[in-house]
């Protein structure tokens, strides 16, 4: 079986052209054949989303969905990919909770809809009761061994939670009181999902960053890994999408997005947006999409109920207000004669209440206080010294003689 170190190496850069690779599949197959790894049950719960993660996972090549769900884990429920329907399908969820507590893995796709007790997101019916997404999540997550949120919606709310967020969509970690492994992206790369699930199965929880994202996939920014980085450093910028050069000026969010897209790439490691001349839109960013829109501008807008506020416009307005303020004040300064008066006075201070005089008086008073304090201390010290000397001398006086 692969060591954890070898697995991480496989997941990061060494064999990216091969995906999570045949090496992984053969190693896992061998490990399962020897009963080295227990095959944990897995429930895939979809909430408020576009099914993008499932479709992205469907594009996985090595390992593909079949290998993942049949050889690495024991898939119990996935409303899109399972054969059973209706009551039998949902029954599998409840049986897994009952028969495999603290053994199964819960993978959540999509944001949690919280508005009106989550009634805008009904996920299934069981025993004549409709379950909302939030109820189902709380029920299943309670006894799950690991909870993995895949896609930006499940991790942070994503596009479903974009302003004005009428459904009150939030990320999974904001609803359940336990650790959630976040695998963001819109959609999440198939390798990120299969890699995280495989790590959890084989070695337990992977090393996570401050957003609980696996460091093996989200440890560096896209900007740091980008093959157009040299264009950025030498100042060769594209003026519009599709042009050669760094796409920084056309709004690339690579500098603020942690993901390994440039080296991993998409569609079975064939290509990725920047290679085709489109800027990164920062889909793996925790604030996506509000924190990265407009996609073709460097800084994001601040969304308000009236109008989005563009930072460059704010900068220009601030500059204009300053210029206007100074200009109008200068005009009044000249017209009222204040400026002339100030300049005619020249550089000799005539102000009788000048701070220096006050300060000098303060300094003198302070110094006098210090001198007095020193004198008092000295007197006290001398008195003590004198008393000590008298005591010492008295000790020398023979008994019966008069003491000092």
């Amino acid at each position, binding site marked *: 079986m692969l060591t954890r170190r070898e697995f991480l190496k496989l997941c990061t850069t060494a064999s990216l052209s091969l995906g999570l690779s045949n090496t992984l599949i053969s190693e896992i197959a061998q490990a399962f054949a020897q009963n080295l790894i227990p095959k944990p049950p897995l429930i895939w719960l979809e909430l408020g989303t576009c099914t993008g993660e499932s479709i992205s996972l469907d594009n996985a090549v090595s390992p593909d969905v079949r290998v993942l769900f049949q050889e690495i884990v024991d898939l119990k429920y996935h409303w899109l990919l399972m054969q059973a329907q209706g009551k039998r399908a949902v029954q599998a969820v409840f049986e897994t909770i009952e028969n495999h507590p603290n053994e199964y893995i819960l993978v959540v796709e999509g944001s949690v809809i919280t508005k009106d007790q989550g009634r805008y997101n009904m996920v299934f019916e069981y025993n004549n009761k409709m379950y909302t997404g939030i109820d189902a999540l709380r029920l299943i997550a309670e006894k799950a061994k690991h909870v993995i949120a895949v896609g930006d919606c499940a991790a942070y709310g994503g596009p479903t939670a974009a302003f004005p967020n009428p459904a009150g969509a939030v990320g999974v970690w904001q609803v359940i009181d336990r650790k959630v492994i976040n695998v963001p992206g819109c959609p999440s790369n198939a390798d990120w999902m299969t890699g995280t699930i495989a790590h959890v199965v084989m070695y337990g929880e992977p090393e996570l960053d401050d957003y609980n994202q696996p460091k093996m996939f989200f440890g560096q920014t896209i900007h740091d890994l980008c093959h157009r980085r040299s264009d950025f450093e030498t100042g*060769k910028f594209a003026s519009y999408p599709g042009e050669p050069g760094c796409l920084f000026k056309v709004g690339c969010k690579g500098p603020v997005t942690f993901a390994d897209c440039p080296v991993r790439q998409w569609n079975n490691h064939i290509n990725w947006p920047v290679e085709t001349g489109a800027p990164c839109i920062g889909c793996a960013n925790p604030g996506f999409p509000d924190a990265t829109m407009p996609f073709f501008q460097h800084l994001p807008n601040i969304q308000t109920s009236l109008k989005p506020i563009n930072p460059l416009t704010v900068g220009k307005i601030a500059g204009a207000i300053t210029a206007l303020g100074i200009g109008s004040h200068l005009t009044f300064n000249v017209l009222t004669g204040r400026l002339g008066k100030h300049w005619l006075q020249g550089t*000799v201070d005539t102000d009788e*209440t000048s701070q220096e005089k006050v300060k000098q008086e303060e300094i003198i008073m302070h110094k006098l206080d210090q001198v007095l304090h020193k004198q008092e201390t000295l007197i006290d010290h001398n008195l003590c010294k004198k008393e000590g000397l008298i005591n010492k001398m008295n000790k020398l006086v023979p008994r019966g003689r008069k003491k000092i």
Partner: protein
Amino acid sequence: MVKNEKVLHQTLATRLFHWTLFFTTIFLIISGFYITYPFIQGLPMRTIKTIHATSAFIFMSNLAGYTYYYIFSKQWYHIILSWRDLREFPGFLSYVFFLRKEHPFYGKYNPGQKLIYTSWFLTGLGLSVTGLALKFKGPMLALFTPYLNISSLRLLHYYLAVYFAATIPIHIYLALTENPVKLQAIFSGYLRRK
């Protein structure tokens, strides 16, 4: 009182801190806004980033030195806005907007100057922390998690820089037009009194 007395108004330390702040801020603002939108094709970004990082390092050291100096020389009350200054603010504003001819004696700096200096101190701190987080990411970024992500942090850094850049011209304008006596003291350190 001696006629034409020469009085020390700005100590050497204050002048050094002031002019270091001036030059580093100029470099930081120009290079910072250039990084936001690189408008010159072919100008190496590596050089601009080095200028920005070096200036930022000097700026932060200067800010630390400035703070230390004002605290330990017990002069911080000259530049930090107090409740008393806030009470005097309406009167000061009436002078600024030409409703009064003179303003009373406020001390070394007036409430308007104190407001700007206090806000600059806070802005400088904010810029330093957000700048360090953007530069080094990792543990510095963790300070803001999960309240601010890196994208929002970059936006905050930008807005703080806009505030700095928009208020500096006001300071320069008022320094040039209000009191030539004190203006020359920031160069020479001294002012001459009748």
